[in-house]
């Protein structure tokens, strides 16, 4: 294991070359811009605009009012269960397997911890819950149902404080900024949220501030048509902050109730893209110091531990006020939400359980916890 790095780091300090002292900047951030990603290719974007779009989808609902009757409470729990059923049945059959007529010993608890890890709860959370299960029950016989109940109650304990229904406030317009990494489900969630607002009889404007991704504007425009909302857009490549500013201005002028701002997907470790988000917020505040009134972070349920960094950085940069977790209709269990809640306590408003307009459900901590526990 000699070679380059060994040599690089394994040198002998040479006496004849004293350490070089370098001044540390106290203040004065010099103007050094580290551009990681160049600006969108505007020349190309111009061409893209020439692509001819087909007629708006025939399926678009011209009358927004009857857009899917709100589902009964039991309906959505059933749906969530259905969504989580595969995963939770794995989890619960696992638990049943472990605990039927067994003593609660170290090996058993380890197996329980593994089941939780498989649900993306993360090491710390899994450890905590495992300990809670073991608490005062060590070496006792325990039946599977009891374990499930403890598991659910431990998860619910963490999730309960973050169960906060989403409500459109009275500000006019009530400005909602939707943020998240690429492909998380931001645009779709905006369509779903807008539909809810429309059902409540509110007027809705969508701002297509994802000016980067191909056909992001067209995608949002289709959603606008579906729910009966005006869509404010600019050609691809336009400045997203400028568009946000103008959208707010127009929403004010037209006395629109709700302004939903779609943003381009961005990975939280890209400083320049995060700075762009910050800029959108700054320009909004020029017109309304209290805007945006809600900043929603859209998280994909299939995401693993990186969701923690996503929540942390997006909160720091954009002041996230709440979370919506999408794609819970798959086999991903969304267990990261449990660790997230414990860590940051950000409100969780809703979950996405499909691609259609009515596939957004309020977040219910108990149901979520019970579904994970297989109850």
């Amino acid at each position: 294991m000699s070679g380059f790095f060994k040599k690089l780091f394994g040198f002998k300090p040479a006496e004849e070359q004293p350490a070089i002292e370098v001044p540390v900047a106290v203040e004065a951030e010099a103007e050094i811009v580290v551009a990681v990603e160049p600006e969108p290719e505007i020349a190309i974007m111009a061409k893209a605009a020439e692509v001819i779009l087909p007629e708006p989808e025939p399926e678009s609902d011209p009358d927004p009012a009857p857009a899917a009757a709100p589902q009964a409470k039991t309906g959505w729990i059933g749906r969530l269960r259905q969504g989580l059923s595969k995963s939770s049945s794995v989890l619960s059959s696992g638990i049943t397997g472990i605990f039927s007529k067994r003593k609660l010993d170290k090996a058993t608890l380890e197996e329980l911890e593994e089941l939780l890890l498989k649900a993306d709860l993360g090491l710390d959370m899994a450890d905590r819950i495992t300990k809670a299960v073991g608490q005062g029950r060590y070496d006792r016989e325990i039946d599977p149902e009891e374990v499930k109940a403890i598991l659910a109650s431990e998860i619910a304990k963490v999730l309960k404080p973050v169960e906060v229904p989403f409500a459109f406030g009275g500000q006019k317009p009530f400005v909602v900024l939707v943020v998240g990494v690429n492909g998380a489900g931001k645009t779709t969630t905006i369509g779903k949220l807008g539909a809810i607002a429309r059902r409540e009889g509110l007027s809705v404007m969508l701002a297509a501030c994802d000016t980067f991704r191909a056909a992001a504007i067209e995608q949002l425009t289709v959603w606008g048509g579906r729910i009966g909302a005006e869509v404010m857009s600019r050609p691809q490549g336009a400045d997203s902050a400028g568009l946000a500013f103008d959208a707010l201005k127009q929403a004010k002028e037209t006395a629109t109730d709700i302004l939903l701002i779609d943003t381009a997907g961005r990975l939280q470790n890209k400083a320049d893209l995060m700075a762009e988000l910050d800029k959108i917020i700054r320009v909004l505040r020029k017109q309304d110091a209290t805007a945006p009134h809600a900043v929603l972070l859209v998280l994909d349920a299939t995401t693993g531990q990186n969701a923690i960094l996503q929540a942390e950085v997006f909160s720091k940069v954009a002041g996230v006020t709440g979370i919506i977790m999408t794609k819970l209709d798959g086999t991903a269990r969304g267990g990261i939400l449990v660790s997230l809640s414990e860590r940051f306590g950000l409100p969780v408003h809703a979950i996405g359980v499909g691609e259609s307009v009515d596939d957004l459900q309020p977040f219910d901590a108990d149901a979520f916890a019970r579904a994970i526990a297989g109850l």
Partner: protein
Amino acid sequence: MFETLSDRLSGILDKLTGRGSLSEADVDAALREVRRALIEADAALDVVKSFTDKVRARAVGAEVIRSVTPGQMVVKIVHDALVETLGADEGGLDLRAAAPVPILMVGLQGSGKTTTTAKIAKRLKEREKKRILMASLDVRRPAAQEQLAILGTQIGVDTLEIIAGQNPVTITQRAMDQARRGGYDVVMLDTAGRLHIDAELMAENAAVRDACRPHETLLVADALTGQDAVNLAKSFNEQIGITGIVLTRIDGDGRGGAALSMRAVTGKPIKLMGTGEKLDGLEDFHPGRIASRILGMGDVVSLVEKAAETIDHDKARKIAARMKKGTFDLEDMAEQLQQVVKMGGLGGIMGMMPGVAKMKKQISEANLDNKIVARQIAIISSMTKFEKANPKVMNASRKKRVAAGSGTKVEEINKLLKMHLQMADMMKKLGRNPGLMGKMFGGGGGPSAAEMERMQAELASMDPSKLPPEMRAMMEQSGGKAAALPDLSKLSQGLPGLGASRGLPGLGGNIFKGFPGLPGKKK
């Protein structure tokens, strides 16, 4: 949040130094940490288990080489096993079939299928001069077909005409027909995102597969995926039959354990990686790179590549020529500092290094990062041309003027001048060594992939406590007070191996030594 594996292992295993070989107990203790690291990286639990078993078998009884710690030894064994599992047999796309060769793209919603379709088309068009037809079979997501059409326009690749109301199988047949008639080499079929438990849509994917008989069926999956990666990869492979995996969003800061899960559970190679939203953000899969990332050991290969990308070759060559003559003035130094900034500053550079995650935090806490460099650049730019070329003339009154002009203090200028002297001295020495210079500047391409992988492996087994004392000293200094930068000139002395691994000057040049960007040679 993530401690590097070597940090952890050094705590557990370093007390073992001096023993001849790794005992079962040592290995078990180490493997508990390896397991934690892998789980934190989102590797699926079952996969972690079989992987650690494999490592255990290799590690127990392994001789600890005299010059390394047992911790380093274990990290090396783990890293090697990981590279092996991830697939050293990396192979690109296989297009050896009768034209038009169909490539089918499948995956969950939002994983990056459409973008990757365009990226692959662009690459095949540019590198292999293929004629490609792209077709979107996504009749579900709003504007999905338009998305592909727009991307086609951007990269100058044809897309199948959109006809509303057609189903995916019909579109597939139309695409194959048109490709045959139009003499296309490759047909790329982008499908709608779907859940692997959605029986109806999985059946649709299977029907599409039967309609085009793809030569490659690529599962496009997000590198940020958690434990679910095993389920989705397994299902897609069983139900559709994939030939390879494309891992997207590798430009994120996820640890990428999903790569291990998917590779292990399907046995299918990871063929490509998506490294950005832009259409040139596609790279060959580098197992060594992902292995280091999973183990939390930085990404030195990226560092080298970034260095090679960012360096201004003309400037570098110019400075090199001056060095040969033994001149290295403050202008040259400013140039070189700017290269550091371009590469994302010291923090950016160090963040990519193994075991430096911790230090990175300390660097930013100490405000060291770019501000120092920025300040040094400011000082130099406040000097006159004459002063830059002749630093010796800097007397007290000149220093005062420059300090005022750059908003710094005279002591800072003194330090900078001292640093410059040492650098210039070193340049002179190097300049007098034509052999070394020849190797560095004469070129012969950048480091080969194999060389990089080797470097990576070496790094993987490196212990952060073995960092040069200057670096550590720097880290220990916090607060706003003057902290020493790593002694660049001293570091350079550790670089004699550099001549041997050709092309590496790009790395050493900018980061560790007082060098201007040394050319990694443009292609």
